[in-house]
């Protein structure tokens, strides 16, 4: 379903009263960021330090992703922004409005229509294409940070590919709990070399990173790091031979669109513990319902004669 909104007033390369440049950042800054991006693509999974700028939104709210998006955005691009898989979450709305205003590019909620997708915490359910770029907002780019707080140490560990500390952590998880207890921001190994934080996406999404046709870019604004996974790159979630990596599984289908094998949000319906599971990817869910799929709740509602979701 097309949700394309045409270019905003900023399409003339001048925006916000002609004070700020196209897509907010000045061209010199964009060039600096593009250089960092090129390096990041050349060394998959390696964290490239860059002169991150202060942005007019707070650190931790997507400044890294926004700087990457601002640097790659062109007038012909169509932008989609999601947070928790949904286009209508407040921060996604805020960032989409920012670029609609400062770059004037058309924005969309449809994954298939977008050329650039900025995301926080999810990868869309639809397989991304070669002509798309996905930009991740990253809070903590260093996968080893929780194990070693010092940057001077972790940089050395990456240089020597000395990742034993993480293996020990995962092993201790298994010996203590019988399974690896990391459920999101689950560390991966990129191109058989660098250990990388996939950003806090659920480990459910990790397999989508492997050999993805789209270019994957990661921006961490507060920590001033950029990294990347080029298309069709090997991405392996860390595990052991006898304890293979296992993504989350949901027993029930989406209550609204009946989708299986997708990531579901739990929605509390009342104070008696009644709840239902619905697609976290709002665009995917809407498309399926438009195609006529109906989950148990939607069917129940249709039988009673009112809409399930509105």
């Amino acid at each position, binding site marked *: 379903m097309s949700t394309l909104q045409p270019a905003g007033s900023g399409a003339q390369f001048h925006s916000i009263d002609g004070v700020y440049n196209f897509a907010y950042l000045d061209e010199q800054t964009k060039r600096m960021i593009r250089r960092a991006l090129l390096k990041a693509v050349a060394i998959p999974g390696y964290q490239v330090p860059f002169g*991150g700028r202060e942005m007019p939104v707070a650190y931790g709210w997507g400044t890294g992703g926004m700087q990457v998006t601002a640097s790659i955005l062109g007038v012909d691009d169509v932008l989609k922004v999601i947070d928790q898989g949904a286009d209508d979450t407040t921060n996604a*709305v805020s960032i989409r409005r920012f670029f609609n205003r400062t770059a004037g590019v058309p924005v969309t909620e449809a994954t298939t229509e977008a050329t650039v997708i900025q995301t926080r915490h999810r990868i869309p359910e639809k397989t991304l294409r070669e002509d798309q770029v996905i930009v991740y907002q990253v809070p903590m780019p260093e996968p080893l940070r929780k194990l070693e707080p010092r940057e*001077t140490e972790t940089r050395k560990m990456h240089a020597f590919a000395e990742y034993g500390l993480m293996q020990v952590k995962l092993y201790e998880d298994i010996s203590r709990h019988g399974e690896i207890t990391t459920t999101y921001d689950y560390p991966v190994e990129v191109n058989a070399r660098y250990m990388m934080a996939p950003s806090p996406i659920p480990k459910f999404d990790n397999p989508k990173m492997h050999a993805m046709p789209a270019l994957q870019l990661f921006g961490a604004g507060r920590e001033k790091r950029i990294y990347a996974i080029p298309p069709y790159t090997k991405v392996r979630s860390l595990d052991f031979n006898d304890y293979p990596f296992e993504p989350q599984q949901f027993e029930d289908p989406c209550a609204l669109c009946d989708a299986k094998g997708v990531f579901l949000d739990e929605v509390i319906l009342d104070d008696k513990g009644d709840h239902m599971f619905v697609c976290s990817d709002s665009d995917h869910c809407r498309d399926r319902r438009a195609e006529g799929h109906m989950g148990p709740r939607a069917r129940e509602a249709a039988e009673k004669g009112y809409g399930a979701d509105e």
Partner: protein
Amino acid sequence: MYVATKGGEAAIENSHALIAEERRGDPAVPELEAAQIREQLGGAVDRVMTEGSLYDPDLAALAIKQAQGDLVEAIFLLRAFRTTLPRFGASAPIDTGAMTIRRRISAAFKDLPGGQVLGPTYDYTHRLLDFTLAARGETPPVAPEEDATDAAMPRVADILGHEGLIEPETPPPGPEQPYDLTREPMQFPAGRDQRLQNLFRGDEGFLLALGYSTQRGYGRNHPFAGEIRMGTVQVEFTPEELGFPIALGEIEVTECQMVNQFKGAKGIAPQFTRGYGLAFGQAERKTMGMALVDRALRADELAEDRLHPPQDEEFVLSHSDNVEASGFVSHLKLPHYVDFQSELVMLRGMRASAEAMQKEAAE
């Protein structure tokens, strides 16, 4: 029935309208002008300029007004404006020795060339609420005319330096262009230029608390307030096409030179060492905290044991910036449904298997 958390767009618009209304307050009370803030809330303006790292009293006043007096928010506003400005070069180092002095005190010497100049300070006021200020139309007593002290005011550190009692302050080797934290990411180990820039922009409360902790024994290095001076200095810049320096204008700064004991180490004679603090405007609390922390961070360089947080460069420099800190702390307000859901799934699974094991054991 299911009501999703939708309507982000309308919610944001409404929220913005609400803050605009809150900011204005009771319309029966006259609206605050930015110029009033600039003139009458100088302490706030100076702090916002310093930590916002942009010397512009008018913009700082505007930011304070826009942020309803929330100074960390105002600092954020000023930073977000500053970041869009082109950078055309680095000025010549300001010469605080040539400062037009408004205040200058030393706790190390009773009298010294140029003398002690108390200037405007709250230090010796009694902190009693002054109810005459609550009444409108207060006319302040006429301040005594400030003598523009033409007397030379050599810096205390320079006086001690003649005897070799204090370490000389020489520019570190390396490129003449200083590190620019606003253009390059933090690096560790950090040079002193990078460190001082970070501390200059750092949160006053954070530096005050860390500096205080050094006085209470966490990284102790007995300090004396060698000198605190406040006044205006000229900023000079050499445009490439001219080849000679031109004055861009004057700025008001506060400088603090801490003088610290040092017993000497292998290859270093016993001498006084320094900690340095600088800020825009009148900011003594900030500069003193900064100087204490700067000195504590020199532990490695002076072969002191590095045992406490104020001596730990990565710890201090990575957490001093209140725009970064408040951003990352406040991001916890953003939705984390997906991560939370992932944890729920795991927790339920673990509880189920624990229950099953208990049941098995009971049977």
